[in-house]
């Protein structure tokens, strides 16, 4: 039997990897890839807590599904924004997208 801690540490590691991607990649799309990793790591946690908690209580799975919906929404809008920015400014480099500066 795999202990709960393995799953949690696995999720934490995946989260940190995603975080690194979000913080360090120049390409906005790559940043969104990192965000996906982070969302997935959260989902692993939710599933793990569902399995190791009361199985009859579906809260963990329900939340995981809602995270799917959120992830889909996030990707859809995020990538649309990237494409839109690319069309106007011809760049997808996050550092160069700084129209919101003061």
């Amino acid at each position, binding site marked *: 039997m795999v202990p709960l801690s393995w799953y949690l540490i696995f999720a934490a590691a995946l989260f940190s990897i995603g975080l690194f991607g979000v913080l360090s990649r120049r390409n906005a799309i790559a940043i969104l890839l990192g965000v996906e990793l982070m969302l997935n790591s959260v989902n692993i946690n939710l599933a793990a807590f569902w399995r190791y908690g009361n199985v009859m209580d579906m809260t963990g799975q329900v939340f995981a*599904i809602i995270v*799917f*919906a959120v992830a*889909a929404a996030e*990707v*859809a809008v995020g*990538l*649309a924004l990237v*494409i839109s920015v690319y069309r106007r400014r011809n760049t997808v480099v996050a550092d160069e997208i700084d129209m919101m500066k003061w």
Partner: protein
Amino acid sequence: MSQWIYIGLFFIVGLIIPVGAIVMAWMLGPKKPNPIKLSTYECGIETVGDSWVQFKAQYYIFALVFLIFDVETVFLFPWAVKLGQLGLFAVIEGLIFILILVAGLVYTWRKGMLEWA
């Protein structure tokens, strides 16, 4: 759990067979590469530029609409499974859910985003 072992075995076997076939073909076939043979095939005409063509944003729109509906069905499958036992109220909940999404489709349609042109 045991079910998933077999699914995993299916994946493995499903991958082994094509890999085996391709590797076998690779071993059996001759290998005489030359630059013309390896060049990109465009009906015999010299290739101009590289393969990165600018794509229509339309592709993205279709994939986007698909993504949204895909996630929607994820919500609908558990609903569908329990539908028989839950009665009319659950049916109506699901119908509202679908109708809201169809409204999104209608919006996209009305905005002219579903046109290929």
